[in-house]
């Protein structure tokens, strides 16, 4: 790794740590999907602060489609760092009457679609990618969805369509955390081998360590060189990856309540990480 690349990775690691801190800060108020937000912080740092291009209005030129609504916490954590939301307003997450939905509705800043009915993001992203290409735009479309969503048939209809239409301006990012609402994805209904399945549908696919920033950046770079195929990053992650004490204490916590005794230990650890990275 060159000095420049090392600096770039270091900067993204710092942003990822800040996103993790934001996720804890938001979720500890009234509970939330903290494990997912923490685990996705490295992908979010790379996506929002390196991969997606900015427009001239302080927003993004490229388009991000969140499919699994509960991963909205990742976007909130990242957009707080981006300056699009204040932490103060995000702390109303999960509060009655808030505009900061746990699973947002189309039109909320940062959310292109209504994301709560699982399995519907990949096809909408494919429609957006088809439309952008159709009008000669160079915009790239990124869609995040989860391994649990792979159990929805609509996802595979989307993959078949995207492969057939050769949507090389689209990247699917799969949060492959082997966890869904009622247990391990492996136990509920196994979805592996995921990359091979997408390849069979006409996509280029690669397994990525979803918590390794150089590997994530390398995959995003590779995606741009793939011709005539959508690109699928099967990102292996685990809940709370990046905050060891929470990963150990809450390895299967799909949702963490506000009264959890673990928040302070998690905050303490991420603050230590932040201090080390800031040096």
């Amino acid at each position, binding site marked *: 790794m060159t000095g420049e690349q090392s600096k770039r990775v270091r900067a993204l690691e710092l942003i990822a740590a800040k996103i993790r801190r934001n996720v804890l800060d938001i979720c500890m108020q009234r509970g939330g999907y903290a494990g997912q937000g923490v685990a996705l912080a490295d992908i979010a740092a790379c996506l929002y602060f390196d991969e997606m291009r900015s427009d001239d209005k302080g927003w993004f030129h490229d388009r991000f489609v969140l499919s699994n609504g509960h991963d909205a916490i990742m976007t909130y954590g990242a957009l707080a760092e981006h300056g699009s939301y204040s932490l103060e307003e995000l702390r109303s997450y999960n509060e009655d009457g808030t505009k900061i939905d746990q699973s947002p509705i189309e039109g909320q800043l940062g959310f292109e*679609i209504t994301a709560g009915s699982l399995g*519907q993001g990949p096809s909408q992203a494919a429609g957006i990618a*088809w*439309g952008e290409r*159709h009008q000669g735009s160079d915009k790239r479309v990124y869609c995040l969805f989860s391994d649990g969503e792979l159990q929805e048939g*609509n996802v595979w*209809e*989307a993959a078949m369509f995207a492969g057939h239409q050769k949507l090389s301006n689209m990247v699917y990012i799969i949060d492959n955390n082997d966890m869904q609402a009622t247990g391990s994805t492996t136990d509920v209904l196994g979805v592996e081998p995921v990359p091979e399945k997408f390849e069979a549908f006409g996509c280029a696919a690669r397994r990525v360590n979803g918590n390794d920033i150089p590997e994530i950046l390398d995959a995003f770079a590779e995606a741009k060189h793939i011709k005539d195929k959508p690109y699928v990053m099967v990102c292996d992650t685990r809940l709370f990856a990046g905050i060891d004490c929470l990963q150990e204490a809450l390895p299967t916590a799909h949702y963490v309540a506000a009264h959890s005794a673990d928040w302070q230990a998690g905050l303490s650890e991420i603050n230590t990480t932040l201090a080390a990275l800031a040096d």
Partner: protein
Amino acid sequence: MLLAERIIDGAPFDEISFDLCSRRPDVIMMSADLSKYTQLNRVKKELPDQHLDVGMAEQNLISVAAGVAKAGYVPVATTFACYATRRAYDQMMICMGTGPKTSIVIGFTPGIANPARIHHQAAEDLGMIRAIPNTTVIDPMDVTEFKQALDVAVDLPGLVYLRGHRGDTPRLLDPERYTFELGKTCTLREGANVGVVATGHATQWALEASEILQKDGFDHSLLHVPTIKPVNESEIVEFCFAHDQIVTVENHNIVTGLGSLVTEVVANVGRGPRITRLGIPDVWAPGGTLAHIRKELALDADALASKIRGVCQ
């Protein structure tokens, strides 16, 4: 506003879609392997950039179309009404119905206008879609109205659901003298005694019955209600409360469709006329030709005329 003679169009949507796409380059006609059967041939052949087929996958048809809308186009997703609504209801509601982007779905062969019984028939589509907030639901009576309603739909926000006409569909309304307006009802016969309220294809059936009743000297009125949502409550109330008896006629299950809608509107006012709902009487409709199915369900002209006359006895 009615033509002196009924004109039969062999493939109405072929010309309607081609004409629209020729005028509106932002419109994308979409199919799910049924373009031939919805008569979407000319756009596919002559304006291929404005046609997108997603294969036999209706959930994908609707959700990809929602994405196409979010890219700045006006998608018109076409398939049979049964598949659009039953197979992809959640996608219609969530992907199209919760946002502001114009997203049009045309459901062809609605109600009993399909010979394959149960699975190809859609007797509940109007009820399903009108239950989604902020949507537009239109059931045009003929080809003239279908064309005009689609022209209006492409400039409406959010999810717009239209029932489509295909095949040997009569053209009854004179396009020189009729203009579709969203929410506007249309009085086709003015009279007293019994007020008939109809929508969509069933307005043609009601007109057939009306001709019989007129010959018999039976006084009645006929109101066509093409816009199911947003419903024009005041015009329906005004019509219904001007009659002692109301009969609704629809190509739909009498549960949740036009009959239910008129009943809801009248009940909101209270002390209204008695309402008799005619349509598919909450049973599985038989298959076969439309004439056969109508006969079996007592929706043919003679049976309808008899039932309308009978409400006064």
